[in-house]
């Protein structure tokens, strides 16, 4: 049976149709579901086997990309999201969806016990704050901040699937060629220890690479936003939740390739979705 994919539509989501098309072509039954319908109970999370947070500008990215959608997920839908993530169902956040997953504390490592209220996700160093002291000391681990270039950028980049733990990227040997289109895609971690953990834990799902698959080593524009360690996507420790900045859903047809008029083809983004759909079908 085809797995049902919940394509979450928040106010300002805009790549929902492409995501739905990609999942349809990958063999799923996608359904674009407005957040409001989940809020009022007209739709139920449990009726879906996959969760997709597509790209866009949820709530206009006010207060930082994905921030307010993250609050929705952690305040109104904490239990449902916990259950979805915790049960090992495939979850993917693309671009704005990735930003929301990171800012909600679900990626890179989600501890389901603390997500019920965001005030408990992050703890404070000092309990007494004078007017003089900077507000800091939060132990948030990762963020997606402004591109190193300082501006939004839309360009095609090459991705290499790395993680064999991540159910979306495992076994993908072919590179993926697809566009990025974001202003806040610069993946940064609080410290080097975090990076070591991600590496050791096989949570680095996708990296920006040179066209031939060689390491980008931070070189612009192959790494388009300055992300640490060329990280384009990360998964949670269990491997069922993937977040990525690029848009593989925008390269599912040959004619979308920028150089199809030169006869170039391949490196489709579709394989990533097929991987996830296949996993969901077997659950």
């Amino acid at each position, binding site marked *: 049976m085809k797995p049902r994919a919940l394509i979450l539509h928040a106010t300002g989501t805009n790549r929902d149709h492409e995501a739905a098309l990609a999942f349809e072509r990958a063999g799923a039954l996608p359904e674009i579901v407005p957040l409001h319908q989940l809020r009022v109970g007209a739709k139920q999370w449990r009726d879906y086997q996959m969760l997709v947070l597509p790209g866009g*500008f949820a*709530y206009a990215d006010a207060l930082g990309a994905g921030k307010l959608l993250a*609050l929705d997920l952690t305040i109104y839908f904490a239990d449902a999201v916990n259950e979805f993530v915790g049960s090992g169902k495939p979850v993917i956040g693309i671009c704005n969806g990735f930003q929301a997953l990171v800012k909600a504390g679900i990626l890179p490592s989600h501890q389901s016990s603390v997500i019920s209220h965001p005030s408990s996700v992050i703890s*404070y160093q000092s309990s007494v704050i004078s007017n003089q002291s900077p507000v800091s000391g939060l132990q948030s681990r990762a963020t997606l901040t402004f591109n190193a270039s300082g501006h939004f950028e839309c360009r095609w980049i090459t991705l290499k699937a790395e993680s064999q733990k991540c159910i979306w990227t495992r076994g993908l040997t072919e590179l993926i060629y697809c566009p990025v289109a974001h202003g806040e895609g610069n993946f940064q971690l609080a410290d080097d220890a975090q990076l070591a953990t991600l590496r050791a834990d096989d949570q680095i799902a996708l990296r920006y690479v040179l066209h031939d698959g060689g390491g980008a080593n931070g070189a612009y524009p192959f790494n388009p936003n300055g992300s640490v360690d060329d990280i384009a996507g990360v998964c949670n420790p269990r491997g069922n939740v993937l977040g990525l900045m690029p848009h593989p859903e925008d390269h599912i047809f040959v004619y979308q390739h920028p150089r199809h*008029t030169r006869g170039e083809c391949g490196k489709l983004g579709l394989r990533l979705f097929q991987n996830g759909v296949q996993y969901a079908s077997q659950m």
Partner: protein
Amino acid sequence: MMHHANIHCLIVSPRRADNARTRALVADAHALGIHALAQIEQHALYFVQGALSENDLQRLAAELLTDPVAELARWRTRDAQHGAQLIQVALRPGVTDPVAHEIVRAAHALGITNVEQAATGQQYVVRGKHNQPLSDHELHTLARRLLANDVIQHYALGEIEPTFPQADASAHASGIVETIPITELSDGELLQLSAERRAALDLNEMRAVQNYFRSAKQSVGREPTDVEFEMLAQTWSEHCVHKTFKAKISHQSSVNSHQSSVSSLQSPVSGGVVDGILKTFLRAATEKINAPWVRSAFVDNAGIIDFDDEFEISFKVETHNHPSAIEPFGGANTGVGGVIRDVLGVSAKPIAATDVLCFGPQDVDAEKLPEGVLHPRVIRSGVVAGVQDYGNKIGIPTVSGAIYYDEGYTANPLVFCGCVGIAPKNKHPRTPQANDHIIVLGGRTGRDGLRGATFSSMTMDAQTGEVAGASVQIGDPITEKGLIEVITRARDANLYHAITDCGAGGLSSAVGEMARETGAAVELKKVRLKYPGLAPWEIWLSEAQERMVLAVPLENITALQNLCETYEVELTDIGAFNDSGHVIVNYDGRAVLDLRNDFLHDGIPQRELKAVISNQLSVISNQLSVISNQLSVISNQLSVKQREARNENFNQRLLELLAHPNIASKADVIRIYDHEVQGGTVVKPLTGVMNDAPSDAVVLKPIGTRGTRGIVLSCGLNPEYGKHDAYRMALSVIDEAMRNAVAVGADPTRIALLDNFCWGDPKRPETLGALVEAARGCHDGARLFGAPFISGKDSLNNEYLGADGQRHAIPPTLLISAIGIIDDVNQAVTMDLKQGGNMIYRVGVWQRDDSFAPPLSQETPRVYRALHQAIRAGRVRACHDLSEGGLAVAAAEMCIGGRLGMAIEIATTEMLFGETNGCLLAEVAPNDCEAFEHHLEEIAHACQRLGVVTTNPRLEIRCDANRFISLAVEHLVTAWNSNLQSFDHAQDKSPVSDLL
């Protein structure tokens, strides 16, 4: 400074203070003449008001307002920044602050319910060179020129007092209606009244208003209310009713104007009188062409043509010039939002945005600008950011456009915003029924854009920014995205009988237009307001963005309401249509407006204008001191024959042309627009092996359509020709749009056109004469190609009266936008060279005469049809049109695209850079040459083999066996990219002269 104990200010700074954005600010400051600045930091300010505990403040900072990995934050205290120089910037009262609203909403969601109000601002920490502080004068200059736009923001050297969104509004909507005595006024007093209320009505029009209210037999016999007067002024504005394009124009020629290109197409101008430019030239062309695939031309909010058996596609291009001149971000932002609503107004889903931008030179000395004029660099960055913000956030790919620089646009930039939509056929209802409810969807109403329609119909002066301040606003793309979700679904469910957008003139224009054949009664008190205090006329006229008006039968309102709740869109029922033949507006049950439809829509007297037609526009231009040397580089090429034919000269010249702002790469702008969203961009704005060469046109395959069919979008623009010969400019830009579309594979028999005229003051006979000539050129060009106009717009009075007393006018500017069909997107052709050994052909009849603007060969349509057949047969590997900079530039761009070389020979040196119409270069594989030539052999001089593609990446152009141009492709690339202000080229900029 924080006198109010309950106001708190959080300062959020990036952990990395020196970043690309602050470096760009320093570069901007230096370009604007503030050289003392060494370093600047940009911090966000968040103001919150409420009885908040330390814990509340800590939580707000940590959980809502700060990204702890990337940012630092501190609550502001009295002595925040020891020794640093600060400039703080905040929004003026009444300017929409959407982030502030989200702060309150999110704080409440977090359980911090004591947050009452919020506001945002920016703080700049400034450091001078050599640790010298900047003088107060320098700080003020920095703030005024770069950091704060006086129209929407205020600043302080030090700490600023925030304005909360509702702080200065009185408690209730005012309800105050004034009577405007008009029936007893003299002619002089009528004109004075028009000027005082900025109505932009002339004496005849004022008299018509006076007569209407005087006439007892029309059962009026009273004085108008301010609501009535304002509605008439805006309904009769140039912006809404296009008085000049409908005027009766008597004209005389000072010299012989061009005959039509084709005598059989001679424009119907007789007796020295044009009875309406629109009717005589533009609509006439469309009617004569009578294309069966045109579904709607000139009558709807957008032009509509067939796509396939299932869908129709719509296209509209608008201008937002005056608003962009005074507030570039908001002006361009709402320009994009406005044209998207036009497409929603034909019940279509928006699928692509276009933008064509004209600016002053970026290196103008800031000291020499007229008073009240923003620097072109500030205008450009604001406009581009405004387009980016709206298009990216609403999720519509910005795919096609152009940027053009000329001194004439210094004070008066042009911002053309276009939108393409798609809809199932026969699903756009157009007829309101009596008793249908008048439903407003979307944003709330404020003082935004008041008198925008009349404002855009006047010449700007140094006070315009001040007066229009309240009328400027920032768009809200997310609210408009909600409208797209609701309207496309409401259309599919047949929930409404008619729809239109609220544009200039707001509800008065939308309801007035919809009720034209019926009648309507509105209760203004039901309109939801952003803040209290608005007078009834302000509610009726407000141009608040992101609103649509629908005619909805009672039985469908619940279904529509449900849709609106799902997508978080506000719905307001403000009245009903009826068959009274009147528009009646009440405020709280009291009639404040009662106007008869026939007078409102047909009572405006036809204007009678005089035109002088001259080929010597430069005479006028000289008077206006706008003659531009911008393109002297290009124009000089015309005298190339007289030059010594030294290789270096031509090499140097080609590199200079490639680096010319009007020709060079626009990648830094193209890439900050999302041109991939919706997944349908098949031929992208940048193409070639390195994705960095300029496409002739874009091809779209709309998501959800079947088969292989696609849409082609292109444009043509050439103000340089407009300065010399408006008729030929029109022919040339139509041809440019056509050949760009044909180059990527569009069927030349299935292309529709849009016209956008941006002109100076039409009351000047020479200016109007050029307008008549351009419109005549549109008629002849459209007929020659069989390409009908489906929509158009004019923006007149693009002039600026500087504080120096001089008038600054723009060059006569005509934008032609083309929308075409390609049957199989897999057959699209791009301009990049594909393979060494392939042949290069010149296609088209190369023609020049002694005029500055080139002629257009009558054979051109046949050439394009033949070329199209060759493309369909798969014979063309690459194709690129000859435009600014002529053949040499076109060849260079093809080399850049393929990173391959070209070795070609041409007949004359004039052909090297000389600009012509109707010509392209085509790359053909050796095996296909015979078949390719066969397609074009019946047209004399339309096809010439020039040479070959070489794997050695070097452009070689010879003439008579003498080498003229020989340049490595990497040098072409460097010159072409030399203007980019983007991150990737910041490090390796080298002057063109170093490349030889």
